[in-house]
């Protein structure tokens, strides 16, 4: 305690405002808090959408259901931020960021890859979900290597 709720003004803070007063996809964050990575599936046409949506861009339907996504994936591409980080992230440098291809799902997503340096990783390496709890209590997702770093 004693920490301000959000250290940066809302509009300079990168993390989404995730509660039900600010977003209609608040179940994503509630599910994530329980360890579940989820997204919306359109009840009309069955399209699985990333990011979660309230209206289907394919069929215009607005009835969605929440489905669980795989918690494992592989690295499609990655790099390491060694300089020029945005405000609030300078202290994290160096950090790895990558494009993760979820296992068995036709979904790729950008994620911070914790627990590894650039030199430890190769394209195709397996990674798994990690739920990050921010100091103010909000949650977000990251990935970590499935196997311990081989260096």
């Amino acid at each position, binding site marked *: 305690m004693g920490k301000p709720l959000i250290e940066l003004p809302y509009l*300079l803070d*990168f*993390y*989404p405002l995730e509660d039900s007063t600010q977003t209609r996809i608040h179940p994503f964050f509630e599910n994530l808090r329980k360890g579940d990575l989820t997204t919306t599936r359109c009840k009309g046409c069955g399209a699985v959408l*990333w*990011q979660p949506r309230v209206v289907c861009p394919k069929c215009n339907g607005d009835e969605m259901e929440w489905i669980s996504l795989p918690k494992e994936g592989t690295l*499609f*591409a*990655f*790099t*390491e*931020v*060694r*300089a*020029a*980080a*945005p*405000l*609030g*992230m*300078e202290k*994290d440098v160096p*950090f790895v*960021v*990558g*494009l993760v291809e979820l296992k068995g799902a036709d*979904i*790729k*997503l*950008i*994620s*911070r890859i914790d627990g590894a340096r*650039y030199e430890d990783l190769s*394209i195709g390496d397996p990674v798994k979900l990690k739920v990050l709890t921010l100091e103010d209590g909000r949650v*977000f997702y*990251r990935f970590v290597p499935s196997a311990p770093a081989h260096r």
Partner: protein
Amino acid sequence: MTRWGAREATWKELCQEAGKALFDDVTNLDKKSIDSVFVGAAMPERFAFQSYVTPMAAEQLGVEPTRMAMRTEMACVSGQAAIRAAYASIASGLSEIALVIGVEKMNLPNLSESHSAMASVLDREWDGVHGLNAPPYFAMVAQRHMHEYGTTREQMGLVSVKNHDFAATNPFAHYPKKVTLEKVLSSLEIAPPLRLLDCSGITDGAAALVLAREDLARRHTDVPVFITGLGQATSGNLVGNLKSLTTWYPLKTAAENALKMAGISIDQVNVAETHDCFSISEIMEYEDLGLCRKGEGGKFIEEGQSQIGGKLPINTRGGLLGCGHPLGATGVAQAIEITWQFKSQVPQERYVGGEWGLCHNLSGNANNHAVMVLHRGG
């Protein structure tokens, strides 16, 4: 054009400088005849805590538009977007003589704020939040291009060497100094495989031009430059949903449409400005503009095909790598370079001339591309 760099000047002062340069150059232009103003500015809200910049820019320039006044915001394409909007306004009959100015003041006392602003070009909540920004995004593009096509670190470095060579001839450039390949390959690692000299700079600057209906343009110059083709395509936004990291489909569409509208093929273009925000970008542009086969962009630079004397001289101004990249100003400066090429107003070392020019601007995670074909009139 203003001098570009880490300028000790506000965005409004840069507007004044660009206006002075323009009105000094086009001497017989009565400011009162300018009926429209288009301002390309990507994010003055972030870089200068200032919205509603069009009336302010017009005031700095001493112009009072009576027909159209607007700002265009398409991140790094904001400049060419302003030219496109001016073209559309003139072509529709709404405007007759339009002033187009691109401006960006990016250097702040705390550069992390500038990097934050840049990261907000991506989907801030789902991509930017992970620390993704332009350098790491294009680093992944480079990694995949190397992985899929065998493009080498050295080939990317050669793009930077070429564009710095050209920038050394350009007094407006932020980085007007030649660099060696060794220097590129040993510069600070920003996001591997990309190093500092693979990245365009955080730059302050402005550029302005006048676009007029053909009959009116001929009153002001013996060498009018005509926009004869325009193309723009946008596809997707969230990085994970992009069709490809290593083929820029919207560039293919934009180029095809612009060239078709102009009635020429890419082989007829004499001089081109392409968006080398990173060294890998220019390599992919060779490919997706159709100058070489997919995957052979690295070979294209290695063979000197984008040098003067090669298949198509590219970025004779010095590109974004050599000139820096004040977001809203870049697209306007590209058009000015082609115009100066046509009018023999560039130093001999980078003179190409010719009849057909092409400008290419891209934005965001390369999900939006704009291509413009220019023709030398006479």
